[in-house]
């Protein structure tokens, strides 16, 4: 106050006292104070907002600019050995509704749009509308797996409360050809059957996500956080799609022609154990499996075990050779074509007399194999069955694989051993039989089968293992050539241009209390005999037509599949007189 008084005095002393307005100190101070107060107020408010309680505004800002984007991943692609895609996922959309929003925003009043929606989905409009009647619900699927074009249309209909969601759909371009092998996925893209199920984890990736900041125009201006998803793995099979397609066509035709209940075939590369084709009929369309009953989905080559019948006979001969009880040139006397073993009868269809080992296989003599089987010690014979992999899994590692049926017992009657030698009293799957023939063809080295090339399986697989000597395996293989030659049981199995060895198997199906009237026809074989490459087993189950001998049913199918496979794999014909040099010579000689 004293200063104020002093100043007032001073101004009064000045010369221009009357003209100059008096400086009103208090007013000036007031203004100063007010101005300062305003700025302090602003400062405090700013500090409050920025420093003390910034969370709310940050949240508000983030709400307007920050977005989390999911990066789509698709289920891995399954290819065959040549990189031909067998299963591919493509993105589709799911249409879903939020009934609460629909009711709040009056979505149901736009009746025309609902009609258009029902129209494009091919559904009844009232049915569709009834799904969203309950305003308490927040999520209803209207339609899943909608193509992107349809989804765009639905998006443009712009009905409030109806949204689209990304999802993916699995397509199998080969349809029923590979249906059981590859299996199927459900609508949520998880594997249900076959390899899709076995390799579900590997094929499924985890989606990544990115947190981004976007500007007013919706453009991404900043990536705040990026989480990499796990890339889905691809699966490379050992299947050759061409052979697979060929085999399936033949199997399907055979099943219809012979009116069989089912048919299956497997083609194996003998050197590596790679399964080149694995087909079953009847099959189903994995792209539209409305009518797929479980019996069509079963991969019969590995799940269904049958008594192999005569196709097991080479094993009896091989056992005898391995044990040394007979030599390659020896003969076995099957006279009089029948014998009694402990009250049961073993017989041939006629008296074949003295047979060489080759003729035993050629004529499929029960007597011959029985005598050979009884000529070796029981443990040796059984051990042969075990080591050929007829009682264990094939290493193929697929869901539902059966190990066949073989009763382990300590006491075996002679009759049981005899029946075992001609393929009764043991049930094996088509794959197990194929493995046995592949082992024979591979010079006695047993390779586990495999159907997936990449990734390498990390579960236990049986190692390649020599189970019989190369010499004896070779000898039995040569003997089997006689089967497809004139006078054998299956000349129809011959493949023009190639030397083929194989064996028929016609077995009766066991029913409760004995053997029924249904047959299983098998043909198992190897080609080309000069340098074996492929083993093929064809199985025709319960042919209902006039033909029910394997030589008439399975053998011609085998010939078609084997011939096609050899041609597709560029295997040089080994049973041809016409080689290039001869052909040229022939030309120069005028004929």
């Amino acid at each position, binding site marked *: 106050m004293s200063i104020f008084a002093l100043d007032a005095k001073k101004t009064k002393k000045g010369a221009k006292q009357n003209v100059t307005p008096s400086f009103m100190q208090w007013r000036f101070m007031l203004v100063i104070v007010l101005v300062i107060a305003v700025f302090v107020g602003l400062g405090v408010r700013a500090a409050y907002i920025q420093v003390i309680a910034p969370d709310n505004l940050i949240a508000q800002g983030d709400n307007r600019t920050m977005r989390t984007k999911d990066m789509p991943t698709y289920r891995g692609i399954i290819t065959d050995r040549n990189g031909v895609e067998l299963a591919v996922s493509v993105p589709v959309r799911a249409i879903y509704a939020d009934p609460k929003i629909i009711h709040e925003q009056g979505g149901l009043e736009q009746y025309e749009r609902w009609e258009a929606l029902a129209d494009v989905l091919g559904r009844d409009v009232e049915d569709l509308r009834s799904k969203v009647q309950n305003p308490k619900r927040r999520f209803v699927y209207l339609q899943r797996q909608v193509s992107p074009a349809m989804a765009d249309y639905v998006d443009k209909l712009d009905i409030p409360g109806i949204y689209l969601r990304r999802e993916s759909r699995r397509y199998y*371009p080969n*349809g029923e050809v590979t249906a059981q092998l590859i299996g199927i996925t459900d609508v949520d893209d998880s594997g249900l059957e076959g390899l899709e199920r076995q390799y579900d984890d590997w094929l499924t990736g985890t989606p990544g996500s990115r947190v981004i900041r976007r500007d007013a125009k919706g453009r*991404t*201006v*900043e990536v705040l956080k990026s989480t990499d998803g796990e890339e889905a793995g691809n699966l490379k099979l050992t299947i050759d799609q061409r052979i697979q397609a060929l085999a399936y066509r033949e199997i399907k035709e055979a099943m219809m022609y012979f009116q069989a209940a089912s048919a299956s075939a497997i083609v194996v590369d003998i050197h590596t154990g790679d399964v080149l084709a694995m087909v079953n009929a009847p099959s189903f369309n994995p792209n539209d499996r409305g009518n797929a009953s479980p019996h069509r989905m079963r991969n019969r080559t590995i799940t269904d075990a049958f008594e192999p019948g005569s196709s097991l006979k080479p094993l009896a001969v091989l056992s005898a050779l391995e044990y040394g009880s007979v030599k390659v040139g020896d003969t076995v006397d099957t006279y009089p074509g029948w014998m009694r073993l402990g009250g049961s009868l073993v017989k041939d269809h006629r008296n074949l007399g003295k047979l060489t080992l080759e003729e035993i296989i050629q004529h499929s003599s029960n007597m011959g194999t029985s005598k050979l089987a009884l000529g070796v010690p029981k443990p040796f014979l059984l051990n042969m069955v075990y080591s050929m992999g007829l009682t264990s899994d094939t290493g193929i590692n697929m869901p539902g694989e059966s190990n066949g049926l073989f009763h382990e017992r300590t006491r075996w009657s002679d009759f049981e051993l005899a029946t075992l030698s001609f393929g009764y009293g043991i049930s094996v799957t088509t794959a197990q039989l194929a493995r046995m023939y592949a082992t024979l063809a591979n010079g006695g080295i047993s390779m586990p089968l495999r159907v997936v090339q990449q990734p390498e399986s990390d579960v236990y697989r049986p190692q390649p293992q020599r189970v019989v000597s190369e010499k004896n395996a070779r000898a039995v293989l040569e003997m089997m050539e006689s089967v497809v030659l004139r006078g054998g049981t299956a000349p129809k199995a011959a493949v023009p*241009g190639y030397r083929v060895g194989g064996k028929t198997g016609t077995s009766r199906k066991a029913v409760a209390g004995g053997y029924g009237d249904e047959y299983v026809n098998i043909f198992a074989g190897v080609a080309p005999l000069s340098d074996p490459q492929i083993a093929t087993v064809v199985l025709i189950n319960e042919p209902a037509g006039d033909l029910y001998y394997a030589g008439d049913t399975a053998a011609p199918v085998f010939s078609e599949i084997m011939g096609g496979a050899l041609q597709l794999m560029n295997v*040089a014909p080994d049973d041809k007189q016409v080689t290039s*040099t001869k052909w040229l010579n022939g030309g120069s000689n005028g004929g």
Partner: protein
Amino acid sequence: MSEGQNSRTTSPTNFSLVLILVSDLTRNKLRVLLYLMVVSTAMAVVLGSHLNRQQNMAMENLMQQKDDLDVEWRNLVLEQRALTEHNRIENEVQKQLNMYRPSADEEVVVKLK
């Protein structure tokens, strides 16, 4: 600062603002330099973040493109596989081109040795 006040006091009537500014600036080179650096780095930050945004947008576009191409590729693969399915090709060439698989008699094997 003290020099500035001195010059003002020695010649109170005869001064030029520009001259004073220039002389002041030349006398405090370090501060001028710092000032200029602050301004230029500030501009650089602005420019940098702008360019960063541009790059982000470009990347976003490219990723979108990649996704779209992947989807297109998947659809094309499906189409290709459906059209080149082995049995279908075999049927088509038999019907349309009158081709057939050569029988064993017609095959000529050329051995390269």
